[in-house]
């Protein structure tokens, strides 16, 4: 509760140190070379080692260029996020606003069916995807990866959007119906704009899951559709591990997320939970 005093900073700072140290280590390692790594731990740039930007040259266009995978990641993640959030919004809206019946299944059962897909461990479907994609020549293609990630993201997007639409008062849409709107135009013109915070939170969450996903990427891509996580993973080679490259690529890949988090911090948190709370 509202305990005054400085003591509360003790656990906070303790945890902050635990959280921050690995991040600090990652940042300084991105500016190290062989000698600053394999001769024991080096903590402070310019003090106990000489920083170098070699890793950044290699990674941004040099021998270990991530430009290609970065493009693949951006295309796949953006496309899958847009499609999944759109389909998820449609489904969420349908389940929040209409009475549906399919045999014994009502709204609750249908939404449970959709959301429960997320319980399924990805490894269950990845082996099947591998076989089917091989047959359809979709292995290692941007299209194939977008398809896989869309399916992977729809359940969570539906769940989040469903809880948003439940929060929005239905009266505005009812008025729109009287003005002659169709269900789709009421959804598109009224419900969707009203749930903008929810759309943002859902998109960010979906994007970050897809952006960082590894299992599907490692099984289904090899060359033409590799994503950033794969670029990180392959830095461990026969001649040892390129720690500096790993750290540089990791930092590049976290940039969009951190920017989003800082700008949308408050909105993301309230957005994330909106529906589960009220």
């Amino acid at each position, binding site marked *: *509760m*509202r305990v005054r005093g400085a003591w509360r900073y003790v656990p*906070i700072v303790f945890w*902050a140190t635990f959280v921050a*140290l*690995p991040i600090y*280590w*990652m940042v300084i*390692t991105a500016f190290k070379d062989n000698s600053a790594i394999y*001769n*024991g*731990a080096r*903590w402070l740039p310019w003090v106990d080692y000489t920083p170098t930007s070699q890793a950044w040259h290699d990674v941004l266009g040099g021998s270990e260029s991530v430009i290609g995978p970065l493009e693949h990641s951006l295309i796949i993640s953006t496309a899958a996020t847009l499609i999944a959030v759109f389909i998820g919004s*449609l*489904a969420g809206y*349908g389940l*929040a*606003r*209409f*009475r*549906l019946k399919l045999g014994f299944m*009502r709204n*609750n059962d249908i*939404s*449970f*069916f*959709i959301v429960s*897909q997320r*319980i*399924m*461990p990805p*490894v*269950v*479907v990845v*082996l*099947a995807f*591998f076989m089917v994609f091989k047959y359809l020549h979709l292995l290692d293609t941007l299209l194939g990866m977008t398809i896989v990630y869309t399916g*992977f993201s*729809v*359940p969570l997007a539906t*769940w989040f959007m469903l809880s948003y639409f439940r929060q929005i008062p239905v009266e505005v849409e009812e008025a729109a119906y009287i003005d002659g709107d169709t*269900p789709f135009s*009421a959804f598109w013109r009224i419900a969707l704009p009203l749930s903008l915070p929810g759309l943002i939170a859902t998109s960010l969450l979906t994007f970050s899951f897809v952006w*960082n996903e*590894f299992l599907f990427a490692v*099984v289904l891509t090899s060359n033409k559709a590799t994503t950033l*996580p794969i670029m990180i*993973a392959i*830095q*461990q080679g026969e001649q040892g*591990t390129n720690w500096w490259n790993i*750290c540089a690529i*990791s930092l590049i890949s976290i940039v969009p997320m*951190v920017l989003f*988090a800082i700008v949308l*911090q408050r909105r993301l*948190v309230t957005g*994330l*939970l909106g529906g589960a*709370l009220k």
Partner: protein
Amino acid sequence: MGVTQTESSVTSPRLGKGVAPAAGSPAHRNGWPFVVPAILLLLLLNIFPLVFSVVMSFSNVTTDNGLKLASATLANWSHLLHDSGFWDSMKFTVFLVAVGVSLEFLIGLSMALLLWRKIPGGGFFRVLFSIPMMLAPVAIGFMFRMLLNEQYGPVDSVFHSLHLPDVLWLSSTTVAPISVIIMDVWQWTPLMFLLLLAGLQAMPEDAIEAARIDGASGPRILWDIVLPMLAPISVMAVFLRMVLAFTIFGEIYLLTGGGPGTSTTSTTLLAYFQGFQTFNLSYGSTISLALLIFVTAIATLYLSVTRVLLRRVQT
């Protein structure tokens, strides 16, 4: 204490369960066009691969004979029952989920309570505390491998300068699982923290205010009012985390590769190894389906137990 009137404002988390739409004008229009795309997509991209997996598990598929399915067999499933590798991976996965998710919940809750009220520097800590969950799992796996390196890692050098005994973080079969947990806690406490903090911030102030006017002490308010009101969101947060934790793959793949020995081989990792290193796709599918059955059972059990508990907390 005069606070019960607000408790009804927090409802249980709706994991797909919830109220049917009210009888309004949209409700009796045709809503199927909205839902059909999602259902078709999931049938195609989740249910079909699932069925395909089931078929594979009752057959014998390797990458050599392509899509040809051999005749039906129970061999994979009967092998699974006697496969100590599978049971060891389940034990490790359950250990990781139980210990990891508990720690994440406790630390996340403590930090959320400490940062709930505005304090100087609170915004900074909130951003810092959410960074780990944004990093790619593979990046985190590598990072901890570097930190815990037994020759040139910083943790080792700190232990050395403090004259603490050397710990074989990644090469001892007893310590490596603990290292995995440390990494998992680092990575996922942020999600707990954010969800619980949002839960606290959405809490109605008047109940707490009323109790304070009645003269309730801080710990009493925390125990009697705040924690019960936080129960629904806690149940949801733990559920989400638990389901995701059962599928851990990339982090361990790069931290320990499942070793030393098989001491940190999660079930997903084992299924992957079977499928893509020994190219026994059928047996890999069988393992993954066993994991699915287990996760579904745990999820169902968890949801029904917490539903009863929540009802008790809220009345």
